[in-house]
């Protein structure tokens, strides 16, 4: 049963306390939007959830595979977009159809054979989201997923998120802009 739970979690970065005593609980179909000023610890919260950082105090329980869309695209620049996504999809045990579906959902099908290094900022952002979609992981952690996206792409992102939630996934996102679907809000 997919879930993501924070129990009285504190986060320290370089001796600076970012937040403390934070508890949250996300179950299947839940979505939460983390808001707050720059540097308040939104990205650190997502990295904690992903297990990339250890909490200074408290406990984080996650059940289910995780997909993280951080600020980095994590795709090999020299490969075509499809081949770069395929590397991660193979690791996740996913097939080519999952990649093609994710590319189509983010409006990137026409760019499948274009090398990643030639993609624009917005296209890279969409590619990052396509990587998350293709992973098939039930827990999505999205760090500023809408930054640099034009209106149609934000609509595509919203649709992807809605589809993921309807399919029993859960989403923890940090964003400065609304993402177009109803989400619980957590202000840091």
């Amino acid at each position, binding site marked *: 049963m997919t879930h993501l739970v924070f129990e009285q979690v504190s986060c320290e970065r370089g001796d600076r306390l970012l937040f403390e005593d934070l508890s949250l609980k996300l179950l299947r179909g839940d979505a939460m939007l983390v808001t707050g000023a720059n540097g308040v610890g939104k990205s650190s919260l997502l990295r904690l959830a992903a297990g990339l950082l250890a909490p200074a105090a408290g406990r984080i329980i996650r059940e289910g*595979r*995780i997909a993280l869309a951080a600020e980095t695209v*994590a*795709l*090999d620049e020299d490969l075509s977009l499809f081949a770069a996504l395929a*590397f991660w999809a*193979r690791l996740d045990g996913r097939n080519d159809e999952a990649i093609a579906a994710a590319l189509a959902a983010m409006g990137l099908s026409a760019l499948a054979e274009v090398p990643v290094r030639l993609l624009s900022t917005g296209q890279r952002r969409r590619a990052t989201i396509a990587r998350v979609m293709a992973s098939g992981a039930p827990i999505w952690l999205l760090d500023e997923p809408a930054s640099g996206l034009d209106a149609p792409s934000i609509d595509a992102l919203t649709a992807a998120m809605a589809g993921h939630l309807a399919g029993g996934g859960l989403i923890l996102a940090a964003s400065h802009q609304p993402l177009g679907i109803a989400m619980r809000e957590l202000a840091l």
Partner: protein
Amino acid sequence: MTPFALLVRRDLARAFAHGGAWLPLIFYLLIATLFPFAIGPDAALLAKVGGGVLWTAALLAALLPVERLVRHDVSAGVLDQLAIRGQSEEAVAGAKLAAHWLSFGPPLMAATLPAAALLNLSAATLTRLELSLLLGTPGLAALGLAVAALTASLRGGGALIGLLMLPLAVPLLIFGASPGTAALKLLAATSLLFVAGTPFVAGAAMRAGRT
């Protein structure tokens, strides 16, 4: 394909993209060409020092690919994504070591054939050199990867690579260039030590670099 094989294949493809893996080879041959110019066309002398010259050249050539081994994967978020997928840092380092050696060791051994001709090495010296490179290049590759992981998250870490790696590689150089089977055994032992230790050193460095 297993995750390990996928990682090895990816790193190998990256090594040969843009001819990156050929640069150390060209560098190696260039150094081999420089020595006859510096020492003079004394065939007997060149044949005598040739083995040591080529080992020194191999050591210097091993420095070239180090910078790109880990640094890019840190900044592009690739190591983060691997960690999220539950790939241990040690396994990732092991795959990187295998890929790095494959892109460095065998090509270097092939380039040793023309280099040996340039330095007028005898067949016996060449055989001995190839054998010592076969035993020693895994150690060189391991050392390179460990240094790459240690310097990956340092600003300006590239400048430290030579300073860190060359002193540690001295045992490989000594045993690689010395005659006798005892030296070969010690070379193999040193190489094995580096190969066995590197996944843990590099893995710990990659993990520490994340926080």
